[in-house]
């Protein structure tokens, strides 16, 4: 029996091996994964979340940090963080602990 996946925000993703970061002349950050030449433009918040993906910081901790800083509606922050992590994951930019892969149909705006 396959164990139920851990909810995405309970897991601590980390950068996928082989990802590269490029900062362009305007200060915008572009990521590319190990299996493609496609580049993904990250908005400042998505890039800040990317930097928190160290294999130790959980999505929930990211949510609480964003909430502590911006004080927006918690449910909205949870949705936004979930969307960003899902986008990054779909682009093969994140590695997840076993059993915590995000749902493949999540959608949102990391790019």
């Amino acid at each position, binding site marked *: 029996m396959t164990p139920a996946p851990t909810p995405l925000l309970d897991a601590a993703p980390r950068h996928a091996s082989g990802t590269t970061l490029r900062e362009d002349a305007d200060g915008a950050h572009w990521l590319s994964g190990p299996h493609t030449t496609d580049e993904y433009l990250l908005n400042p918040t998505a890039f800040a979340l990317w*930097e928190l993906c160290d294999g*130790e*910081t959980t999505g929930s901790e990211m949510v609480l*940090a964003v909430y502590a800083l911006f004080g927006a509606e918690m449910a909205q922050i949870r949705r936004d963080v979930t969307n960003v992590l899902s986008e990054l994951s779909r682009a093969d930019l994140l590695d997840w602990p076993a059993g915590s892969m995000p749902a493949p149909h999540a959608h949102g705006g990391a790019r």
Partner: protein
Amino acid sequence: MNLVRLVVADDHVLLRTALAATLDNEPGLHVVGQADDARSTVATVARCLPQALLLSSTLPGRDASDVCGTVAIQAPECRILVLSDDSDHSTMLDAFRSGAHGYFAKDVRLDALIAAIEILVRGHAVVPPHMLGGLLHELVATRRREHQPHEGLAALSRREREVLNLLASGQAQAAIARQLVISPQTARTHIQNVIRKLGVHSRVEAVAVAIERGLIRAS
């Protein structure tokens, strides 16, 4: 039309008066007071009840964080934007903890500052994009410390240990950033955190402490 009422607090006369005059000429903004030290800032805010305070991080008299704390209590409706000479994460974090709602380096462009004021009075926080990652990391680390107190090496996060290992291998800030696929500013924050948590004063000392206590091996 409702004007946004501002107080500008900075001890540099030329900068303060020029900024106040410029902002006062902007549609939608009205500078209702100026101050040149911590005491007069608190008094001016109490008298003028502005919607936003532009506060220099280096006012004479008291720490900017103290001023933020006092204003936050005396005039809770007033949104505080700290203007700093540097991009130091710990200064910024202190300001936010003390009640500031925004933080900008003083080399910001005027149009960006005006946009920030508008965002601020709408109730949102203002953080320079290049400092956001480091600030969020600090907030995560702070929350962990509050919930699980540690000291020294034990308090280092995994990422900070990675940074310490890279420092030990002789990597500079830019190389560490490349290696960890993060920005140089965030790498700098991690290095500062390692130094602060280990209670040392330099990168070399941090590496020495880590080797001495067996966290990393001398190469």
